[in-house]
């Protein structure tokens, strides 16, 4: 079945486009209204946690901890009647959020760039090139995902703690390096595997055509594959951004002093032994989700259909 589909690729493009535009025009309006209604309903359900987060961030501590009695109270809880905006002031000014934002941004940007570059290089080799030891290396790559991080974390931490480095203690701990460096060495098996899977869906004839024109393997990678991989590069960027932005365990283990902390770590300082300042925690959390949502919102233009097609058209 797949081969039949593939064989048809690239035929009848012009006719199809014309017919399709015709189809869209005659589609009944009610269908579209229905689609919107359904999607809005799904949106409301899925956006609930964020609504609740924002609502909780505007309440007094007593109200956040209380269990809503009945479904009415549950939804009423989403609309705070007496919003306490001062929660935000308290959450954001009493701690060095500016410094923490700076540290977090450095890590996020450096790690993401490293992952995009070195990860896509490895993924391209796995997807397109033939070399000895490829199967073994790929299996090893995947298998690194299978050992829980909390186990490899300790030996890795000890390595950074024992090897001489730039920190005041003469090692690498309490610096941002352990949070960045690993991302410049492939960025992890998850992203390599993800990109490999995508590169494999890109028609191989494109590479072949380019090579006939005299392009080397590096040019094929840089000028054919990467430009055609907008959706997956955007996905990697979003995932890398979010995971580094929210990463908690690694900063916890590596960073010690207050001025070197990241946002996710600082956020946890609202959690106490017996009680949590939920209103402040939520206010800080809400603030922290804004950049992530913005990145997502603006990165998704790389998901636009036709990105891949434009590459095909230029063949």
């Amino acid at each position: 079945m797949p081969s039949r589909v593939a064989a048809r690729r690239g035929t009848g493009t012009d006719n199809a486009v014309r017919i399709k535009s015709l189809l869209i025009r005659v589609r009944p309006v009610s269908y579209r209204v229905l689609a919107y209604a359904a999607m809005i309903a799904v949106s409301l359900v899925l956006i609930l946690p964020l609504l609740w987060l924002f609502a909780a961030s505007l309440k007094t501590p007593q109200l956040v901890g209380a269990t809503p009695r009945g479904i009415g109270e549950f939804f009423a809880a989403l609309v705070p009647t007496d919003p306490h905006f001062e929660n935000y002031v308290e959450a954001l000014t009493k701690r060095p959020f500016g410094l923490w934002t700076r540290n977090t941004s450095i890590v996020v940007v450096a790690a993401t760039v490293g992952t995009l570059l070195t990860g896509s290089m490895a993924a391209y080799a796995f997807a397109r090139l033939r070399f000895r030891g490829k199967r073994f290396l790929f299996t090893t790559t995947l298998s690194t995902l299978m050992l829980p991080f909390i186990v490899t974390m300790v030996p890795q931490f000890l390595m950074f703690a024992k090897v001489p480095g730039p920190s005041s203690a003469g090692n690498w701990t309490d610096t941002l390096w352990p949070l960045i460096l690993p991302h410049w060495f492939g960025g992890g098996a998850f992203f390599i595997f993800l990109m490999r899977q995508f590169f494999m869906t890109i028609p191989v004839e494109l590479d072949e055509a380019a090579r006939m024109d005299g392009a080397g393997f590096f040019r094929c990678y840089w000028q054919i594959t990467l430009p055609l991989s907008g959706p997956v590069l955007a996905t990697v960027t979003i995932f890398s951004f979010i995971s580094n932005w929210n990463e908690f365990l690694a900063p916890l283990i590596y960073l010690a002093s207050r001025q070197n902390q990241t946002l996710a770590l600082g956020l946890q300082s609202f959690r106490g032994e017996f009680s949590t300042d939920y209103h402040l925690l939520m206010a800080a959390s809400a603030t922290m989700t804004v950049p992530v949502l913005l990145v997502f919102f603006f990165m998704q233009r790389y998901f636009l259909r036709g990105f891949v097609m434009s590459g095909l058209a230029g063949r």
Partner: protein
Amino acid sequence: MKMPFKKRSIGRRTLLRYSVAGGAAASFAAALGGCGETQVVTETKIQEVVKEVPVQKVVTKIVKEEVPVEIEKVVTKTVKEVVVEVQEKVVTKVVEKVVEVEKPKPQALTLVFSTWWPLEMVGHGVYTQKYIDVYQAKYPHVTIEYRNWPFGEYHTKLLTQAAAGTAPDVFAYSGIFFPKFVKAGGAYPIDELVRTDAEFEIEDFVEQSLRLSVVDGRLWGIPHIGNAWAVLYNQQVLEEAGVEDINEMDAAGRWNWETHLEALQKITTRDDAGKAERIGMNDPGLNVLGIHSWAWQNGGNLLNQPGLGEFVLNEPAGVAAVEWAADLVRNHQVAASPADAFGNSYAELNNGRFGLIYGWAIYSRVKGFPVDVAHPPSGPAAQTTVFHPNTLGIAAKTKFPEESWNLIALQLSKQGDLDQTKIMGVISRRKSNLLKMAEVVKGQFGIGHPEVVAQVIENGRTFDVTEFQQEIGNAITPVLQQIREGDDAQTKLDELKPVVDDILAPRRG
């Protein structure tokens, strides 16, 4: 090394001026003393000396170290030092004296101190900041670098740091987890430091609070912020439900398991669908901490011997205590179900959804609530409760045990202990403070009966903690949950016995 008592501080400039004047006066005295030849020499020398290094050096040091200075003496020294060049014999003697005044300045150092709360935190943070400031003023050569990590991950962080040899010099540690850390070799033994510190009266501590910090016969920490399990009740709710004030019941000797159940039944109200609108109390302690309290009240226990013991909760007194607590949920339905208990108990007490809760005897967060504190009821065997302090300890690999100890001693001094109650809202662990504590908390933290708090601590017991505490806890908790859901207590606890005994087997050897 203790500094001499400070009488009066003198600015450096003032002192210089005095020494100049004094210098002149002394030379005049010398002139009176005789030999004209010397006099001339001395006078010219004085002029020089005042400007030159030696004098200034002495003066500077005196000022910096805030040593009380008798001005005339200094001046004499100065002058005699000047005279040195003329009369050799005097010289030697005086130089020695000068050396006595000079004290080697202690090396500047940085001490890392960690807990699980940030300095911005109301109560705990304020207290900690205050004592860091006091410490740094008292020991100006020490800079304290404060670090904090959230409680949930605090001990993990400390462990990995200890493994890398970079653990904080002084650290707070949860009392329950501490013996394991000590056994692993993470802490520095402090018995010597305590013995040599004359001002720190260790005998003043409630004995059993120290027991948690003793491992293999040595002392490894001092009980830090601690608390005791007590009853906090919403007076308004009790009044509405027609329940007599708990403290009045207690005073009349009528606060026991029967009246406790009656009170809970009166408080609990349900709507037509059977949903609880108001619930008697929060989770009745079907966990390692709470179950100790019920077992003791019934004459039972978890283990029969501190540390070395065997599991005995499956004996009649223990089983009955577990059933009593479980029945409050599964039969009488007057205590919060796990779902109800999940929220913030203090908030639910405040808004009147719970009539009473078992919580910490003094808890700073209950400020402004219409609540009071009471002793837990007397059970068939005794009226007692759980008393649970944490620990301040020193890292095994610290380079500065003395300075580290000073930081602990200061925070847990009589004043520091009392300040913990006043600022943090935790209970005192020093006997001499138990009654003072009552005064301090009166009217604060919603406490109308402060004497009850002292009583709770005196009647409270710490439970036997070994390095296997967490294994035992993780074994017991699921079983208690099964019993709460309706399983037979005797059967389940009998099944549990070999599991717990197996965990403790290494202790018995």
